[in-house]
């Protein structure tokens, strides 16, 4: 045990804000607005409730794509972790899809499915599913043979083995996968909305750029970052705490 070291993490955001203010003072507001100009823009968007409407659209798309990806990734990842044959079969596909930036599929998907919810959910699905499947597969593969063997000699049947050994042992990896999947999906969502959508946070950023409203662009960026941060600290960190105490090796 060592003494708690001072953590300078709290200083990074104020520091960024100071640099922003210093830079913005050298440019006219319509090019680089000050943080308070962006705050005023935020009040305007909040005032007519349009920010909520766009946020709601984005979050619904994200959740739809993300949950579909979680279910498929759990199935594929577990199967690939347990069966070497299935792993051999699926690995090239995984590598292929991971190598192509998910946003590259967006134009094709939009030609097929049109602009809107289904297309964007599909882009999120592609972005989130493959990295999640790989992480879950590694988790299941990484379960020590010794633990499985010990459980079998203690009388566990196949179902008990899955529920009492594979599931708890792979929980840290499943959480890591959720985290990766959510953030990949979120990135893809914003990009997809910028290409083809009529609402959403990404759309907000894109139209802000088109009409030359840099405050709107920056407001969109802040909201995107805020959502990601909220998910990280209030959802994933909390899940992580459940197994952190036994993962200290």
């Amino acid at each position, binding site marked *: 045990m060592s003494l708690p070291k001072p953590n300078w993490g709290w200083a990074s955001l104020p520091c960024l804000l100071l640099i922003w203010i210093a830079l913005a003072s050298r440019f006219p507001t319509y090019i680089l607005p000050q943080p308070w100009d962006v705050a005023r823009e935020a009040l305007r968007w909040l005032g007519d409730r349009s920010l909520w409407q766009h946020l709601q659209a984005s979050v619904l798309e994200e959740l739809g794509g993300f949950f579909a990806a979680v279910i498929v990734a759990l199935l594929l990842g577990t199967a690939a972790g347990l069966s070497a044959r299935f792993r051999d079969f699926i690995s090239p596909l995984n590598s292929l899809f991971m190598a192509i930036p998910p946003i590259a599929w967006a134009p094709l998907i939009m030609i097929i499915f049109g602009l809107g919810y289904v297309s964007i959910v599909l882009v999120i699905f592609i972005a989130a599913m493959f990295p999640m499947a790989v992480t879950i597969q590694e988790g299941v593969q990484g379960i020590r043979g010794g633990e499985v063997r010990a459980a079998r000699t203690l009388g566990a049947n196949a179902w*008990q083995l899955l529920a009492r050994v594979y599931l708890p*042992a792979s929980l840290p990896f499943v959480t890591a996968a959720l985290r990766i999947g959510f953030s990949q999906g979120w990135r893809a969502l914003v990009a997809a909305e910028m290409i083809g959508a009529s609402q959403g946070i990404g759309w907000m950023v894109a139209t802000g750029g088109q009409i030359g409203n840099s405050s709107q662009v920056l407001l969109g960026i802040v909201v995107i970052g805020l959502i990601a941060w909220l998910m990280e600290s209030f959802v994933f960190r909390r899940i992580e705490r459940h197994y952190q105490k036994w993962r200290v090796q």
Partner: protein
Amino acid sequence: MLNTFPYVPPQADALAVDDISFSYPNGHRVFSSFSLNARPGEFVAILGPSGCGKTTLLNLLSGFVQPQSGRITINQTAVRPERSELGYVFQAPQLFPWLSALENVRFGLRMSARTDASQQRAQALQYLRLVGLESAAHRLPHQLSGGMQQRVSLARTLALEPSVLLMDEPFAALDAISRNSMNEETLRIWAELGQTVLFITHDIDEAVFLADRVIVLSIAPGGIHSELEIQLPRPRSNLKTRRLPAFLDYRNELMTRIAQVMDAGDATVYPTPRLELTA
């Protein structure tokens, strides 16, 4: 007329390995016409250098792999991995890191679910007490020392009340001091519960200290090199037993035999092939 009554020996073997042969799919032959018996309540140590097939023997005994010929029986019936009268203690404790010591010991009881949760906990606690770890019941495995982990592992196996205990170099990873005290613990528990024990080791002192009988294996293709009855008085203790002239005699005798085994074998160490376990 022939007598058609089945022959019942006066005291049937708790464990019988009858003329087995086994080779791995790669052709590496580990056993040919190998036999081994243990009487009920007997403490048998299997001693051999690396590469003599100790791990393979254990896999065969546990029913995880099948011999190509011959029979292995435990209390007169064929072995299967899920047999509850067989208990295993492995070299690594293999505790479940997400469960407390108590819940680890309860694991096997929970699988069979013959009793309700409170009875399972009481029984688990009783076995933790037997290994002297009642006070650590609510600690997680990573909060226990290596020796303590191995004791929890032992309690976890004993909680299922197996009549035959297979121990695969259970204390090999411990330092010499912990190992000696675990040896004493093992004998104390064995005296209390009276199971048949098959104890695999490469430590000569440990074999002499623990066993009624030491079986020396030869290097693969394996078989039994020789057997040695250990007639040291019981109860045995580190302080008394290890100083007896007879203890040293047994030890020297076994050292000589191991040297013979090493000379006879080609000293090639065969790694044990990894087994794909099917769920």
